[in-house]
C-alpha cells in the first residue's frame, strides 16, 4: 500500500544520464555569462511561427529537453510577446500570417530583438517570390540575427543566440 511516510523516507528514484555534450555545456556557460551581464540573468524569448513547416518548432522545443535544458542558462520561452526580449521567427512570412506577425512584434516592449530561424525565415527559402509568402522575416520586421538551416540544430540555435547576446549590448 502506498503510504505518504514511506514515500518520503524511501530512496529517491532518480538516474543520471550520460550526456556527452561538452559543446552544449560550454555554449551554455558562455550564454549564461552574457545573459547575466546584459539581461539581468534572464532572457525571455517568444517564438512565432510565421509559416514554418514545424521542423524549426520541434528543434526549438528540443532546447528544453534534458539534453539541453536551456532554462538553466537563463533562457525562458514565454507565452506572451509582452514579456519577451527576443522574438524568434520561423518560416517564410505568409500573407495569411502577415497581420498577426506585425501585431505580435508591436506588442513587445522595447528594447526588442528579432531572430530569424531557418532558411525560409532568413530569406524566404524555397518560397521566395511565390504568391503565398511575403518573403523572409526581414520583409516585415527589423531582423537582428539570422540562423540558417533546414532546420538548424539545437546547438546551432544556441550558437546563434550567443552571437546575438554578444552584439546585443551594442544596439543603441
Amino acid at each position, binding site marked *: 500500500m502506498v503510504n505518504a511516510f514511506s514515500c518520503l523516507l524511501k530512496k529517491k528514484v532518480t538516474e543520471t544520464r550520460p550526456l556527452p555534450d561538452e559543446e552544449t555545456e560550454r555554449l551554455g556557460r558562455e550564454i549564461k555569462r552574457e545573459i547575466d551581464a546584459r539581461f539581468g540573468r534572464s532572457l525571455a524569448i517568444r517564438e512565432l511561427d510565421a509559416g514554418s513547416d*514545424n521542423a524549426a518548432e520541434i528543434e526549438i522545443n528540443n532546447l528544453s529537453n534534458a539534453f539541453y535544458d536551456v532554462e538553466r542558462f537563463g533562457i525562458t520561452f514565454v507565452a506572451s510577446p509582452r514579456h519577451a526580449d527576443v522574438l524568434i521567427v520561423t518560416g517564410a512570412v*505568409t500573407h495569411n500570417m502577415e497581420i498577426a506577425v506585425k501585431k505580435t512584434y508591436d506588442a513587445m516592449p522595447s528594447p526588442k530583438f528579432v531572430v530569424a530561424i531557418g532558411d525560409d525565415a532568413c530569406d524566404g527559402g524555397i518560397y521566395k517570390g511565390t504568391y503565398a509568402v511575403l518573403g523572409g522575416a526581414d520583409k516585415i520586421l527589423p531582423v537582428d540575427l539570422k540562423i540558417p538551416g533546414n532546420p538548424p540544430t539545437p546547438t546551432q540555435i544556441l550558437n546563434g543566440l550567443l552571437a546575438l547576446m554578444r552584439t546585443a549590448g551594442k544596439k543603441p
Partner: protein
Amino acid sequence: MPQVMPEDDAATGAVRELFGAAAVARITYGCNRECSVDVSEPEFALAIPWLASRKFVLISLFCVEGFREGAGHSLLSIFERKGSILILVRNITGKRAMSIATVFPSATWPERECRDGFGIEFDGAFDTRRLLLHEIYPAGFHPLEKLVPDTPVTTNDNVSTADEYPFRKVSGEGVYQVPVGPVHAGIIEPGHFRFSVIGETVFNLEIRMFYTHRGIEKLAEGKDPRDCTKIAEAVSGDESVANAAAFCMAVERLSEITVPDRAWYLRTILCESERICSHLGDLGGMLTDVAFPLGASQFAVLREEMFRENEKLTGSRFLRGQLCIGGVNRDIPADALAGFRAFLVQFRKQYKVGLSIVLSTPSVIDRFSQTGIIRKPLLRPLNITGPAARASGGGVDVRVNHPYGIYDRFAPKPQPLKDGDVLARFTVKAAEIMDSLDLINEVLGAIPDGATRSDEPIRDGYALALLESARGQNLCWVRVQDGKISRYKVRTASYCNWLAIEHAVPGNIIADFPVINKSLNLSYAGTDL
C-alpha cells in the same frame, strides 16, 4: 499497364451497379489498382447517395486543369471502401459543379479549396467561406489556375471588419466566446480556435486554419520532378519522410520505375523511425498538458536520442534529403545499421520503463480517460484516419489496406481500441511505437544487399499514391507533363482529422482542450500547404 480486376472488387461492382454493365468498359485501372471512370453530372448525382449508403468514404476531392481534352477543369472525387478505390472524374464546363458536402461532409473543405484555388462554384454548398486564402488576398484571385503565374500578389492593405471571417454564431444566455490564436502561448504552429463556452464547458468549437498557407502545390508546378522531393519534405517537418515517400511513389508509379528492394527496406526503416519520433512527441506532449513532467521528460529524452540516431544514419535529424525518385540517395552502411539495431535494444528497455511509470500514475489516467471522445459513427463521414481512427474502433491502416513497398511482407499488427478518448489514443500510439520497433528490427534482420536507386527515366502521366504517415493516411496525386510537374496534390492525414477535434472538444472543459488537441497532434503546416 492496366490490370484486370477481379469481379468482386467493390469499386468495379459499384460502377456496374450504378451505370450498368456497359459502363465497366469505361473504367480505366490506375497503377495503384484504383478504378477510375468519367461521369456526367447527372450520373454523379445518382452515384453520390448510393455510394454513401454503401459505406464508401470520400478520401479526397480536388481539381485538375486540362486533365481531359476539351474540358477546362476536371474534379476528381476519390472514394475508398475496404481497400478498393473508386475515382469519379467530373469534366465540368463553366466552372460550376454540384456540391456533395451535405452527403459527404469530408467534401466541405476540399470544395472550398477548389473554390479558392480555381474559382469553381459548387451549387448547393452550405459553406462558401474562403478557406486557403484569407481576407488579405484580393477577391477573384485563384492561384492554382494555370494562367495565374506563381509571382507575388498585391494584397489588401486594409482589411475592414466587414471582410472578417464570419464564424458560426452561438448565442444565448450565459454563452460567451473565447478566441484563441493564431499566435498561441506555446511553441506551436498558428491556427485560430473559436470556443463558445457556457460556464467552463465548451459548447461549440470552430477551427480556422491555413495561416501557414505557403502555396506548396503551385510551387511544384513546372518544376522537374527530381527537384520536388524537397518541396514534398517541406509539407510538414515531422512528416518529411512520409510526404517525400508518397511523392516519390506517385512519380515512380506513373513512370513505371521499379525501386530496388534494398531501397524499400531503407525507406521502411526511415518511415518507421519517423513514426516513432512523432508518436514520442505526442506522448510527451499529452503528459505535459496534464502536468506530468516526469513522464514527459522521459519521452523527450528518448526522442532526442532518436533524433541523434537519425542524424548518424542519414546526416539529418529529420531524415531529410534521403529519399529520391527511384530509391534513396545514399546507402546506409551495414555497420551503421548494426549500430542502430543495438541502439533500439536499449531504446526499447528505456521506453518500457517510461511507459510503465505513466500507466501506473492514477492522476494521468484520470485526466486521459473519458476526455475528448471521438465516436465511431464520425469516422466514415469525416474520413478520420490514422491512430485517431484506430483509437475509435476503426481498422484503417494504409500499410494493411493498400500495402506499398515491402509492407506486404512486414505488415504491422493493427491494435484498435474502441473508447475513442484521449487514453485510447495514448494507448494506441504507445503500442504503435512498440510495433514500429518490432518492424524495424525485422526489416533490419532481413535487409538485402544491392542497388539503392534506379535511374530509369521519368515519364509523363499521372498516378495516385497512398501512404500511412504517423498521423494516418497521406494521399498524393501527381501529374507529369513534358517532364515537368503539372499538378501536385497533397492531402495529409492532418487535413482530415481537424474536423474530428471540432467534434471531440464540445462537452469538455476548456482546460482539457490542449490535451485533446495534443492527443491528435495534427500538423498545421501539413494542412495549410
